[in-house]
């Protein structure tokens, strides 16, 4: 097990992503931030706070549960649903930024795009992730990346956030020495 | 005629000795032919053949479930040498013609004595007395009458029947079930029926009829037999009636001595039976009643049904269980292994006393001079019930898979070996 991002590095990465989101979207006016539970939701909240500080405005963060849209439902016992909350109640015409902790096969994001599709018609959908570990199985890419970490498939990347894990860090497990 | 020297069998009191069979009877050693076949019965127990006053053989009319032949084979496999066949056949055994037909079929097959029970009322409809004397005077010599499956509910009809059979020392065997209190009933009424949503069959529906009938029997001074008592209250009524000197006898089935109503939780209709399985408290009272003589005998209420009658919804399923082949083992387990009865006492309740009630003079004893109706049992051995291997034509046993004590090894009817357990 080794730590690849510590607390300071995580917060610097999120701050940079916040700036990049603002730059790309010319401000925060039309933004809807949607974190994918569990940890993506906390990252989304932190990014919302950073954007508010930078812009001196108010911006709520929402959540998007993708459980019902997963393509691996039949591989596991049913999962408990997690909350979905859309700030302002609608994504129609908005610039939606999906936020997740680890970007891997791309299947979670595909499910999220399906979920968004059921909810309305955003102007654009962008993706922000803290870690991109590679091994994509679908033609999906991230717009904002905290850190690219080349990994082997048998390794696992874990993001710990102080909101639920009592510490901020990103670790990698199963790496052969 | 076959002659046998049965060597070194224990009797029901544990006394070991030889028994001699010749000319269809138990004889003295000196009367035995020189070429008598020797049966080494060391380790086996010789018991008088069991007598079952309550079976359904389904012939004529429902031969897909059982026939006199297959029922007789099941009886022999269970150690029975005499069985009484209830009249709810098609047509109903309410005439001399039908009872003679059943009687002759039994004689023809010669595996055990089959004594038909005549219907009390025409068509078992409870309204008009059947020709009871004619059935008694027929070749079948019917003495026991019952509308089993239905209750003789009209008190006047019951009174007349009880009076009428006195002419020939007959007896009315009552299926005690108040029909109004049991309309569409499915199982014992109580906590389990309430939970399962199956229509309840209250104990009082049985007890009220027993109470009425013992009073009628007292009033007209006649013999009454209560079929399959199942409730603690019923036992108490019979106990009091006997104390008053009323001529009442009663039977209990092996399944009511062992099984309880909570088995219906599986909704498996193999546990659907009339009268229904009752509670643990009732089972205990039945065992005690059988032990103290309140309940005189064990009778199986062997009720075969074709597979499709049980492979369906509970409400739609037929009532009844088969029991001839498991009766002795179940009774032995619940009464002797629990020390409520000695082996000799149990055998009296399976053989001597039912023979007395039915006046079946060739059964109930292995004394010299008696017809050689007996069975050899291995009481130290156990066996597992496999419904596919039973002799009965039907498979509706609730005891499938049970491991039971007491293996019936051989059964003899009038000195002829009619059943021998295949060694495994």
């Amino acid at each position, binding site marked *: 097990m080794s730590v690849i991002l510590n607390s300071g590095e995580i917060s610097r990465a999120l701050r940079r992503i916040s700036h990049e989101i603002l730059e790309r979207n010319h401000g925060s006016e039309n933004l809807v931030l949607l974190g994918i539970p569990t940890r993506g939701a906390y990252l989304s909240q932190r990014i919302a706070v950073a954007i508010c500080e930078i812009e001196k405005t108010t911006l709520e963060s929402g959540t998007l549960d993708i459980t019902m849209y997963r393509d691996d439902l*039949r591989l596991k016992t049913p999962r408990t649903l997690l909350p*979905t909350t859309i700030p302002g109640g609608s994504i129609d015409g908005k610039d939606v930024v999906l936020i997740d902790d680890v970007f891997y096969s791309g299947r979670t994001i595909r499910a999220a795009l399906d979920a968004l599709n059921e909810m309305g018609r955003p102007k654009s959908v962008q993706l922000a992730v803290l870690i991109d570990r590679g091994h994509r199985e679908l033609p999906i890419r991230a717009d904002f990346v905290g850190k690219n970490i080349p990994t082997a498939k048998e390794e696992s990347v874990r993001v710990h956030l102080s909101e639920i894990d009592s510490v901020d860090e990103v670790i990698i497990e199963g790496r052969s020495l | 005629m076959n002659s046998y020297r049965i060597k070194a069998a224990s009797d029901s009191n544990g006394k070991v000795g030889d028994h001699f069979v010749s000319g269809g009877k138990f004889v003295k050693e000196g009367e035995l032919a020189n070429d008598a076949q020797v049966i080494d019965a060391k380790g086996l127990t010789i018991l008088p053949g069991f007598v079952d006053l309550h079976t359904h053989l389904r012939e004529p009319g429902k031969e897909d479930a059982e026939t006199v032949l297959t029922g007789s084979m099941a009886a022999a496999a269970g150690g029975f040498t005499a069985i009484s066949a209830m009249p709810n056949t098609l047509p109903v055994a309410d005439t001399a013609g039908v009872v003679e037909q059943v009687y002759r079929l039994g004689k023809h097959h010669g595996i055990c004595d089959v004594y038909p029970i005549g219907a009390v009322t025409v068509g078992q409809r409870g309204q008009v007395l059947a020709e009871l004397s004619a059935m008694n005077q027929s070749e079948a010599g019917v003495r026991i009458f019952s509308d089993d499956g239905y209750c003789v509910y009209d008190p006047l009809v019951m009174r007349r029947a009880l009076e009428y059979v006195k002419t020939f020392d007959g007896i009315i065997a009552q299926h005690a079930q108040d029909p109004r209190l049991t309309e569409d009933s499915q199982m014992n009424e109580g906590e389990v029926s309430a939970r*399962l949503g199956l229509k309840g069959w209250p104990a009082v529906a049985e007890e009220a009829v027993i109470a009425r009938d013992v009073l009628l029997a007292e009033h007209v001074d006649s013999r009454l037999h209560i079929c399959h008592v199942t409730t603690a209250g019923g036992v108490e009524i019979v106990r009091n009636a006997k104390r008053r000197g009323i001529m009442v006898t009663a039977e209990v089935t092996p399944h009511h001595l062992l099984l309880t109503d909570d088995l219906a939780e599986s909704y498996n209709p193999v546990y659907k039976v009339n009268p229904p399985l009752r509670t643990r408290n009732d089972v205990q009272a039945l065992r005690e009643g059988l032990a103290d003589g309140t309940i005189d005998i064990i009778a199986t209420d062997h009720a075969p049904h074709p597979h499709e009658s049980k492979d*369906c919804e509970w409400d739609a399923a037929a009532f009844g269980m088969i029991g001839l082949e498991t009766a002795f083992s179940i009774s032995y387990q619940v009464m002797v292994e629990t020390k409520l009865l000695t082996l000799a006492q149990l055998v009296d309740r399976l053989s001597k006393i039912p023979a007395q009630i039915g006046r079946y003079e060739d059964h109930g004893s292995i004394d010299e001079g008696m017809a050689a109706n007996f069975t050899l049992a291995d009481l130290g051995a156990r066996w597992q019930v496999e419904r596919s291997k039973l002799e009965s034509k039907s498979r509706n046993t609730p005891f499938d898979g049970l491991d039971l004590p007491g293996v019936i090894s051989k059964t003899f009817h009038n000195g002829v070996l009619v059943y021998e357990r295949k060694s495994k």
Partner: protein
Amino acid sequence: MKHLLSINDLSKDEAIEILDTAAELARLAEGAVKKFPTLRGRTVVNLFFEDSTRTRISFEAAAKRLSADVINFAAKGSSLSKGESLKDTALTLQAMGADAVVIRHSASGAAHQLAKQEWMKGVVINAGDGTHEHPTQALLDAFTIRRHLKGSEGDLSGIKVGIVGDILHSRVARSNILLLKKLGAEVVLIAPPTLIPVGVSQWGVDVSYSLDDQIKSLEVIIVLRVQKERMNDLYFPTEREYARGYGLNSERMEGMKDKAIVMHPGPMNRGLEISADSADSARSVIVEQVANGVSVRMAVLYLLLGGATFKELSSSGENL
């Protein structure tokens, strides 16, 4: 949980999980998400041996919102036509590859037998069997109660529920009693003694013969439908006498607690067990029960059918 045959199949946690899931699905439905791809490719058969348009439509809507294929199989009239019909139907459904069977039958235990007799392999959901149980109705009732009185969270502790009417013949009452007790509610059965089952003392609920004595202490009153044919079986003398003692009307409702609600599983006999003004009053959540039924049945279908079957589980191993 492989089937849903009885409330007894659920632990308290599982029951709450169904309610939580239903709550989330109900919330999503308000936010315009009406349909999920979750059960695409699964086949749900509505096997109804008894007429019940409401329950069938509710299950059908739930299955369709989860993108399941729905087959409606109405085996009318054949209910107790001498055995076998249930078994033969089950074998047919097995051959058709049904993943789940929602069964309504007039015989108590029919769902149980369908699941346990190995006639078919799919998931069995009991949509009402005889006078035994109707578990999804109890779940939607609990959902409705929790939504009104507990903010859609946790269990139902501290709530007193009165169930009024024909307890003896009610599958809704049986399932409700089991679930409400499981969730910590206090339950009192209110009916004339003829409509209370023998053996009720083992159920751990209070019994009262007087609605007026109880009504002021209740947070919830569930009014059961009176089957008119019961009258001929001597359970009560006349409709009028029943309504006088046990019918809910606005006069009786005056004494109710502030936030108390009125429920009925439907269909109602207005003027018999419930007066029209009671059924349409502000306390009545009867219409909402119907809407909640769809969410709860979606949750049940998702939790029973949305995941892997055992066979599928054993061949998995994919990463996400």
